[in-house]
């Protein structure tokens, strides 16, 4: 309660000093159809010596159509703004030259008070954002909003909701280390950035009508503090800076500079902390695993086998299985595992590196000091990229799909992780270790950083290794019910196997089948629930491919060994399906293409704006066996044949009549992971052919 009381104790409104009408002359012609243009957006968050955060926001919007008007009709500003009725919060510059002042009286009525007040039930006391309905705003107007507020804690997220084209943007944040680690979010500080690709393509950067700029002082600051001279300075630089308490100067000094080059319009999360909780659990886990390892490997003769067992034991303890398991295990994630594993490796005297990597779908970092959405892993240099990550259902040593790329890998410095003294095991005393657990790589860090980067090329897998192989048989046509039997056997290998495993486990048994996921169930009931769940899961997967499933006749799942790369997961089912065919006179129209299931549909009408990315190269193979109803023969089977092949991938279908049946073999292969948008036709070509195939029909004719 006290904390809440301290939140937003004091807020104040900046008076707007601007008098002149904001300039719209520089808006690029290509934005003529945009609904809303942000002429300028500035956000600044600083922490003063008293631990108070000053937050200031200044934005100028240009309303271009009714859609834009609707978007900007109401704004939310921090709660408890103590603006008097006459305090100016913003202005509207009308088309006719008049100016409307927006003042405190336009704030929503303060029906939800903070501090002494509480909710209707008296149970909660909370702060609320203040809604501001913009008075008199119309299409063609320019709206300027400015406020600043003081708060006693970091905002949990900082939103820069710029889904609209932006002429000018600045973002600056400066907070101390203590807040960085123990602030509102406790484990990390996040800045959520929303970008619109048009602002950040390299095309715009080189455009002469350079419409987006950063202020000179920002440039100077970046030059001084962030970037080395040889780094390209993008005009759309968004700066996030967190500097630390001088008393803890050696702890971390952290910068993120980000260009946003080649981004999809999606939420990006900048996470910049290696701090994590669960230290006690980590120690216990490491001790238990070490104990089990020690029993199995009194001497480490085979490093790989030792590590696989370590991984296996870890997964035994922490593999996500149910909501309950996850809660019990405190949601162990990659950071947790990295810490456990690093303790084991260090103790076993196996050299290793802990790293963060930036998934490639965010593009390359603009500078070495940039990492977005990092994932943690351990790499063993001597064994070259033997990776661990327990949370993605990958076999140890296999490269998780989000690592599978060329990219920048940031190796964590010793200072990020707490030095660790390995505890005694079963009463046996181990030597105290004064050295840090984490090994620092050959750092290229400049004076501002305490960690280094290396450019890494993780091996990318061949499409054949990530194979989804389907054998489908269509048989037993029932013309009365318009049904037939759809028999499918699908095997998943490599990352396809990992992906399927994840899907299989992400909807947990209890969550799916029990009203109360925490209710204890007997083993017998558990088996029954598991069986029902599996049936539902398999049937759901078939339905999700667009098939009209009437009933499930049989089903099975062969998991094999998760740790054996060559063993696939195999799913088999016989289901009764409807509407695969329709009879008309002496003909039957058979929807052969539908057997392939729903395919990725390329956007055929618009020009590709962003480069292509898929998590990993992969192959889908189908063998379709259609056992024709007695007395029927297929016409023009060759119409099912097709082929498109490019450097990006291929789709090929080959059909043949075979006595009383038809056999169609198809292959769809993604041979790329990244592909240039300028060669979109090479990607769209095979995607479109596969999609077109799903609509193909053939005629069956009575002999």
């Amino acid at each position, binding site marked *: 309660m006290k904390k809440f009381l301290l939140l937003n104790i004091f807020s104040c409104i900046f008076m707007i000093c601007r008098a002149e009408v904001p300039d719209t002359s520089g808006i690029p012609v290509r934005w003529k*159809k*945009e*609904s809303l243009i942000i002429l300028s957006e500035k956000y600044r968050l600083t922490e003063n010596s008293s631990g108070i955060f000053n937050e200031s926001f200044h934005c100028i919007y240009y309303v*271009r*159509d*009714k*859609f*834009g*008007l*609707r978007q900007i*009709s*109401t704004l939310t500003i921090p709660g408890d703004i103590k603006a008097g009725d006459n305090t100016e919060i913003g202005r509207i510059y009308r088309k006719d030259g008049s100016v409307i002042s927006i003042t405190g009286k*336009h704030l*929503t*009525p303060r*029906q939800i008070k903070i501090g002494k007040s509480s909710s209707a039930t008296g149970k909660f006391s909370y702060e609320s954002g203040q*809604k501001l*309905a*913009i*008075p*008199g*705003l*119309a299409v063609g107007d320019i709206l300027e909003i400015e406020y600043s507020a003081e708060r006693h804690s970091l905002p949990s997220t900082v939103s820069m909701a710029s889904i609209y084209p932006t002429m000018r943007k600045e973002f600056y944040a400066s907070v101390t280390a203590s807040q960085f680690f123990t602030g509102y979010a406790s484990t990390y500080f996040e800045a959520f950035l929303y970008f619109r690709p048009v602002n950040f393509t390299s095309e715009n950067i080189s455009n002469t009508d350079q419409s987006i700029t950063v202020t000179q002082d920002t440039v100077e600051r970046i030059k001084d503090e962030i970037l080395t001279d040889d780094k390209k300075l993008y005009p759309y630089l968004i700066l996030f800076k967190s500097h630390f308490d001088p008393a803890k100067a050696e702890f971390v000094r952290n910068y993120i500079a980000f260009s946003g080059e080649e981004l999809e319009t999606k939420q990006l999360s900048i996470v910049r902390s290696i701090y994590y909780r669960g230290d006690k659990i980590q120690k216990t886990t490491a001790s238990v695993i070490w104990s089990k390892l020690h029993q199995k490997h009194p001497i480490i003769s085979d490093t790989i086998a030792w590590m696989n067992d370590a991984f296996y034991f870890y997964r035994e303890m922490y593999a996500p299985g149910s909501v309950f398991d996850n809660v019990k295990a405190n949601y162990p994630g990659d950071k947790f595992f990295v810490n456990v594993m690093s303790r084991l490796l260090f103790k076993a005297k196996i050299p290793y590196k802990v790293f963060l990597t930036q998934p490639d779908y965010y593009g390359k970092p603009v500078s070495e000091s940039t990492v977005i959405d990092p994932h943690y892993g351990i790499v063993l240099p001597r064994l070259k990229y033997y990776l661990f990550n327990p949370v993605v259902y990958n076999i140890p040593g296999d490269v998780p799909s989000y690592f599978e790329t060329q990219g920048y890998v940031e190796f964590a410095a010793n200072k990020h992780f707490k030095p660790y003294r390995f505890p005694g095991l079963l009463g046996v005393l181990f030597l105290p270790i004064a050295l840090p657990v984490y090994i620092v790589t050959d750092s290229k860090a400049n004076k501002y950083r305490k960690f280094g980067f290396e450019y890494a090329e993780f091996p990318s897998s061949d499409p054949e290794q990530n194979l989804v192989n389907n054998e489908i048989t269509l048989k037993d046509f029932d013309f009365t019910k*318009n049904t037939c039997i759809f028999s499918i056997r699908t095997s998943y290998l490599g990352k396809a196997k990992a992906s399927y495993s994840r899907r299989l486990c992400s909807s947990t048994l209890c969550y799916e089948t029990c009203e109360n996921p925490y209710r204890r169930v007997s083993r017998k009931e558990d088996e029954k629930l598991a069986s029902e769940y599996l049936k539902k899961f398999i049937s759901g997967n078939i339905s999700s491919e667009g098939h009209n499933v009437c009933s499930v006749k049989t089903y099975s799942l062969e998991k094999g060994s998760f740790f054996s790369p060559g063993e696939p997961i195999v799913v088999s089912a016989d289901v009764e399906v409807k*509407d695969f065919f*329709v009879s*008309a*006179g002496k*003909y039957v*129209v058979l929807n052969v293409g539908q057997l392939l299931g729903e395919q990725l*549909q390329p956007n055929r*009408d*618009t020009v590709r704006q962003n480069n292509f990315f898929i998590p990993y190269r992969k192959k889908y193979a189908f063998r379709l066996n259609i056992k024709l109803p007695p007395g029927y023969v297929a*016409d*023009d089977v060759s119409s099912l044949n097709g082929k498109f092949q490019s450097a990006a991938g291929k789709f090929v279908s080959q059909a043949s009549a075979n006595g009383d049946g038809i056999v169609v073999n198809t292959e769809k292969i993604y041979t790329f992971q990244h592909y240039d948008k300028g060669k979109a036709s090479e990607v769209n070509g095979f995607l479109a052919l596969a*999609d*077109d195939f799903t*609509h*193909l*029909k*053939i*005629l069956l*004719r009575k002999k």
Partner: protein
Amino acid sequence: LADSVDNRETDLHSAASSIIGSETDSLKMIEKIFYWVQDNVRYIAFEEGIMGYKPASASKVYDHLYGDCKGMANLTKILLKTVGFDSRLTWIGTNDIPYNNDIPSLAVYNHMICTVIFKGKKYFLDPTESFIALGDYAERIQGRPCMVENGKNYLVEKVPDLSYERNVENQNYTVRIENGKLLGFNECQYMGEPKTSFLRGYNSTKSNIKEHAVNAYLVGSNSNLIIKNTKTSDLNERAQPLKITYDFELKNSVLRSSNNDLVIMLNKDQDLSRLYFDSTRVCDYEFTSKYNISHNCSLKIPNKYKVGTAPSPLNIDNDLFSFNFRYEQRDGELRLVKQIKIKQAVIRTSDFQLWNKSIEQVIKFYNSPVILSQI
């Protein structure tokens, strides 16, 4: 409460005059004011305390260009009143409320509109319903009881129920077979809910993707349909039907047999075919509105061909819905006539079985091809 609002009517007289301009026809004057409020005042509701019941001042809403339903109704009323119309505030409970004003409670009303009494006829104006014409009523207030102010008393009225016939969606398309493809031209016409819904959607769409959005709306989920040359009537016109024309190609719709018969899938749209209620559904189903869909398709029969087989007519008609589908052969053309009427917006659970059985037949008709045989 309404009497205690300072509407500053005299200030709004000039505004109303300016909106009406030189118009002298009374109904047109009402239309102009009604449409002006729809177009220029944004619906934003902050209903704090008494403001849940007390309308905001008309002049304040006019100045701010935003308001809740009460504020917008009050502004409409005052603008009309200042130019001499008998306009009144009206409480109404929308179809969100499962009871009517038989219950003596404030909760029977959740919405405010404006009623104009002109030449003895009552016009119910809901300015929060953008793009709705004068005399047209949104599904949510149709047939709903309301309370119209009447000096110190009130009048109990009911908004007319406009039936499914209001919600017209007509498609007239001609198709021909060229090089094994089905090519055609479609003329669509929309009135009632389909029209207002389209216009609202269109105006809520970003300008730079409006054209794409219209095409996506017309194509729907049919990935075999490719359309081009789309033209629309005036998208700001409320009273007249919305008209859209376009050329199209229907892929994968013609199969040629080894003896040169043509098997044709002529159904461009498969309306409602995915609406099937399984045993897990325990609640009634409510459509967004009633439907009145009519499709007329004319296929020019190619030379040296005749109709071999065409699906049998389907005629399902009851108090809830009707599906009337048939093929007709006339003057060298094969015509597909489809009429779908959803007469009641709610299907009760007790009627699910009836619906499911009907939809099975509907799907069968949709999927059944026409066979053209060589003469």
